[in-house]
């Protein structure tokens, strides 16, 4: 279980997160939705400890991760996978090498075992035969799948997805969402997904939280969010800009 408690984060005096709190149950897919620039990616990076929170606490299975340093921090990160918005594949390596990289660096598996595991992951994400290509030689959707394979190959207990479908066409959005659901079913990980994809994310997440103005304005099941009476949530879910709703159209 992940507990995010009253997280504050500012950049150069500008507060981005102003006391964000929510809980993600084990095995659950929790989606964080919200407009651009609301701090969703910052929130994920704070959970991963790639950014330090100014105040607040984050607990994974009841243990605080905010004070962790050195090996303790590395052990925590070993349990968590992070799918970056652009994939963050190493561009000097092929897709195969990218997926094999954490296995080579973090495990004592033999070359043969690593090869078997990488080929298995490539097949699962539908990239069989593409391992020899470099990231710039494949499409955005393939990059996302390769990055997902690199995350899955380490069998994380928790996966953080930073806008996994941004910039993809509707068919690829659906395929990435299916991949996430398949991954959860197969490996049983807990997931936090930052997403803009409305209404598609309603079919993926078990629960959803809406981040607005630096706080989590509402959390609930997809149905609860869809029927929310909170003005920001209503506007976001219906895709209406503030100016339009002021005009009474909402």
């Amino acid at each position, binding site marked *: 279980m992940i507990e995010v408690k009253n997280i504050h984060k500012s950049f150069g005096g500008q507060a981005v997160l102003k006391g964000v709190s929510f809980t993600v149950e084990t095995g659950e897919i929790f989606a964080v939705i919200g407009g651009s620039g609301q701090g969703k990616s910052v929130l994920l990076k704070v959970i*991963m400890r790639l950014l330090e929170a100014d105040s607040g606490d984050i607990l994974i299975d009841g243990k605080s991760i905010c004070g962790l340093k050195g090996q303790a921090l590395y*052990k925590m990160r070993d349990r968590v996978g*992070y799918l*970056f918005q*652009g994939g963050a594949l190493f*561009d000097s390596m092929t897709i195969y090498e990218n997926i094999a990289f*954490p296995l080579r660096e973090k495990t004592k598996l033999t070359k043969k075992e690593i090869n078997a595991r990488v080929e298995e992951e490539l097949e699962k994400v539908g990239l069989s035969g593409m391992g020899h290509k470099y990231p710039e030689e494949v499409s955005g959707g393939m990059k996302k799948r390769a990055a997902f394979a690199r995350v899955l190959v380490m069998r994380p207990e928790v996966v953080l997805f930073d806008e996994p479908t941004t910039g993809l066409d509707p068919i690829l959005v659906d395929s990435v969402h299916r991949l996430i659901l398949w991954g959860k079913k197969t490996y049983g990980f807990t997931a936090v997904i930052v997403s803009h994809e409305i209404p598609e994310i309603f079919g993926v997440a078990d629960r959803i939280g809406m981040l607005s103005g630096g706080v989590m304005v509402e959390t609930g099941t997809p149905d609860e969010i869809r029927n929310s009476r909170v003005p920001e949530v209503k506007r976001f879910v219906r895709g209406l800009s503030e100016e339009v709703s002021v005009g009474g159209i909402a």
Partner: protein
Amino acid sequence: MDYILAVPGSIGAAVIGVLREMGDMFLFLGRTLYWTFIPPLKVNRVIRQIGFMGARSTALIVLTGAFTGMILGLQIYYTLQKFGAEAYLGPAIALSVIRELGPVLSALMIIGRAGSALSAEIGIMRISEQVDALESMSLSPYRYLMVPNMLAALVSFPLLGAIFNVVAIYGGYLIGVKLLGLSAGTYFSGIKDFVGFRDIRDGMIKSLCFGVIMIWVSCYKGYNTEHGAEGVSRATTTSVVMASTLVLVWDYFLNSVMLNF
């Protein structure tokens, strides 16, 4: 009143900014040195970077070394001729090159070629979240990016400096002996008489120091890149300017110490 306070306020803010950056830079250097001694060493990456920084810079170093030696040959011969001391052309070129121009010019050339590329590479890795990806895998960017470059620089800089010295001395020989008619024996025996181990040692120490400066500044600027392509461009430019300036400043301090002891 506010206007009067604004001036010292902005000066104070600028000073604090500079001090903070200096502190960050020294912490960065400290972390890089710390990770240098934490096994396992990424030997393949070190070798690859020696190839990139060292082997691929050889042609440039040979070219600049040759022309530096030839220019020195012309200039120093002209000056020595006024004193009737043309016989000292060999040692004058050798001492200038080994003690000073070899380490400094080769460092400036490598900074221009490899330092800028290093900043850009790490900067692009930073803005495309590849550095964050390393950290998210519990892998230290210092071990994978900084340490191999630091070790590669410690190997490459003295070697390239030595190549520069040899080529420059032969460049001076070409002008002094083949063009201006000095005897080859005079040219080389003078070098043998006047250039000592201390001169070579001091030149090597300088090359090592300049290698550390280049990696320190280039990696730091790349690692702290922000704001997309423009940020990469800025990081690259500032790293070249800062590293080149630091090389010259540090060269002055090293000379002050070395010539007095």
